[in-house]
Each structure stands twice: as C-alpha cells, then as structure tokens.
C-alpha cells in the first residue's frame, strides 16, 4: 500500500490535468469583448453568442443593438442603446470612443452621436429609445437621449410611461 500511494498520486494528478486541458480546449464562452478593432468600425454581432456587458443578456437580434469601440481597439456590444449609455458613463475613454447603433428604420450601423432616437420604440431592455437613421416626428438626438437615460426618464419609469403611452 505504501509503495502504491505515490503511483496513485501521479496517476491522479495526470488524470486531473488531462481533464482540465480537455475541457479548456472545448471551452465555448459567449463573446463579451472583441480586441484589435483599431479602425473603430462597426463589427457584425455574432447573434446568440454575444453578451451585453451592461445587463449580461444574450444578444439574439440585430434590431436596435449598439456597440462601442474604444481607441485601443477593444469593442463591446449592447442589446439596447440605453445599456451603452449607462455603461460608458463611468469610462475614461467616453469622449474618444466610437459609438455605433443599429437603426430600426434603415437597418444599418450608424454613428450613435449622429443618430435620432424615438422615445416609445420597442427596445430590448424596455427603455424605449429606438435608433433611427432618418429624422422622424418626435425623435430626439443622442445628447438628449443620453441625459434622459442617465436621469432615468425613460419608459421604465411608470409615470413617464403613462405620460408617453397612456398606460
């Protein structure tokens, strides 16, 4: 028994290491960040395989999503423009970062700072801001949207919702 023990230990350790390596090779985590996007352009989102950094939800559709590219090439993805606003507020690169939104009317990636936002649209987190490429009646610009998001004046506030939607 005494002689066997060291062999058992060695076998066990080998087995453990193999298990860890095999499962590491199979590792299949959803994307939360993409590095090396030095041109800071809009990347296609891998649907059902990308996590929103702010609310940790899985991004299932391109509709009204957003992404953000930092000057060092890191890119994050969001399922709602509102999430992006909340997330970037505390970051040091919030001035330099490139913000992209996927519009709900023209269905393409445009610069969020130039986009217009509807205030009662369907959005993943229910904030109600839908990015639009064209100016439409009752839309607001990015700065206004940002302020409303940070102040909490969006559809998640019951009183605002009543005012805007009547329910």
């Amino acid at each position, binding site marked *: 028994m005494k002689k066997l*023990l060291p062999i058992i230990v060695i076998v*066990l350790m080998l087995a*453990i290491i193999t*298990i860890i390596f095999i499962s590491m090779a199979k590792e299949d985590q959803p994307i939360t960040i993409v590095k090396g996007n030095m041109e800071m352009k809009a990347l296609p989102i891998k649907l059902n*395989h990308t*996590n929103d950094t702010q609310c*940790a*939800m899985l991004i299932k559709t391109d509709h009204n999503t957003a992404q953000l590219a930092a000057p060092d090439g890191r890119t994050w993805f969001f399922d709602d423009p509102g999430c992006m606003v909340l997330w970037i507020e505390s970051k040091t690169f919030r001035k330099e970062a490139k913000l992209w939104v996927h519009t709900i009317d023209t269905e393409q990636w445009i610069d969020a700072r130039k986009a217009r936002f509807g205030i009662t649209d369907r959005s993943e987190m229910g904030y109600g801001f839908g990015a639009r490429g064209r100016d439409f009646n009752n839309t607001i610009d990015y700065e206004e949207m940002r302020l409303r998001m940070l102040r909490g004046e969006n559809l998640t506030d019951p009183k605002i919702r009543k005012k805007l939607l009547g329910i």
Partner: protein
Amino acid sequence: MSEILLSNQVIVYLLSESILFGLLLIAFIITLEILIKWDFGSYSEQQFRLERRAYLVMTILLFVFVVKFLLLIYFVFAIDSLSLLVPGAMCAAGVISANDYGMLLLLLKLLILFFLLLWMAINRYDLQAKNYPLFRIKSWLFVSIFLVIAIETGVDFAYFGHIDTLEPVNCCSTLYGQLEGANPLPFGLNTMILLILFYLLYVAVMASALSSQRVSFMVALLLFVFIAYYSVVYFFGTYIYELPTHNCPFCMLQKEYYYVGYLVWGALFVGTYLGLISSVMEIGLKVERNRERMVALALLSIFVLLCTGFVAIYYLRNGVFL
C-alpha cells in the same frame, strides 16, 4: 453613508479593527528596532532588552490572531445584517458588492488569517528550538503581515464609508446566477466534470498527504480549494438551499440554513490553511509538521462529507436529484 456608519455592528467592528491596528503599530516599531539591532551572539544589556521586547511582539500577535479570527466571523455577520439597509441586497453577497472595496476586503481578510496562522506555526517551532533559528524569517513575515493589515484597515474604512444606501445593488442571484448563455465555471467545466474533479482532487490530496509527497500535496490542495469553491457555489449549495437555481456563497450563512455556511467554509478554509502551512514549513524549513497535516486532512474530510451529505440526504428524502 451615515446610516451605515451608525449601524451598531459596524461601529463595533471598526473600533476593534482600529484598536488592533494600534497594537500592531507598536509591535511593528519594536520589530523594526529588533531587526536592526538584533545580534544573537551578543550578551549586552541591549540584546536582553530586545529579547524581552520580542515577547511583547509575540503576545500582541497572539492576541491579534485570536481577535482577527473572531472578527472575520463577526464581519460576515455584520455584512449580512446590513442587507436590510442596502436596497436590493438579500444577503451578504449584495452588500459585499455594494462597492469595489468589498471583495478586496474579504480576500485580504482571508489572506491575513492565513499569514497569521503561518506566523503562529513558525513561532511555535521557533520557541521550541530554544536558539531562535527562525527569528529573522518570523520578523520579516510580521513586517509584511503588518503592511497587509495596514492596507486592510484602510480598506475597512473605505468600504463602510462608501456604501450607498440609496443606490440599489445586485442580489446574489444576479451576481452568481448564470450569465445568459455563459458558463460561470473556470476552464470551461460543466457540473459533471467539476464534481469528478472535486472528488479526484480530494483523493489526490489524501493520497499525497499520506505518502508525504509535499509538492504534489501543495499543488493538489491549491487546486482543490479552487475547485471546491466553485463546487459549493454551483452544485452543493443548491442542495443546501434545496433550490436548483440558487447559487450563492453567502446565503448559507443565514439563519434559514442553520448557519451551516460557517461550518462549510470554516472547515474548507481552515483545513486548507493548515495543510498549506504544514507543506510550506516542510518544504521551506525542512521541519516535520505531521500534526497540522492530520488536522487539515480531518477538516477537509469533514468538508467533503458535509457537502456529500447534503446531496445524499436530499436524494434519500426526495428520491431525485435536483
């Protein structure tokens, strides 16, 4: 902010931490003096004085160790009771994550406890050896412990000073629950493989300890505590709570679960500490530490039995697994 700092437990906790820090400061200054002037070959009056002062350092550290240990339990308890004041928090998990200092503080505390325990073990051996062979190592260890405790005391105040009672925090189900589509376990493990690893590592720890293979014992122990943490949070915990979706390391410390968390985490951490200390001392200082190792094995076995017991009892009572 004022609400948190006026909580009874927080006041008592911060007061105790400050007093301990004051004592340690005295010990630190003495240690520095000793380290500079120490000369064991000398018979001068000063050397005798230094040796006597070394006793003060030792006394203070013994006291600090005991109180720090109690304060860790008290800290967890205090955090738990604060969960009423912090919006959104259901248990200690939410309060700990109320600002960035919380997790750091908890880790520092666990680290300090380990080093204090190591110091105790070295000190004990040192005193038995009569001619203080480890005196310098011991003193330098204390100097580094003191620096960590200084940081910890600062973080204590920063942490409790910056809990916002208006800002909602996440509760444990959002903090430890699954990220949608993501796997919270390390190395891309799934629960089945995690459990296999858990038991394999336990056997490896036992076998290497019994055949006195020190290096593999240490490696296995480190891996074991890492895997065990995840196993408890993501598998065994669900049997303690009897709820398959409840993943939280803190809720089990509450009354609803008969404070069993203190036993679970206590056995795991103290067991690991003692095991690590015995192997550190055996590898580094070439001294035999059988007793610590045996106690460590016993505690780890209690831990594994306890975890397995929860699953077994659940299965026996309900006839199914979660």
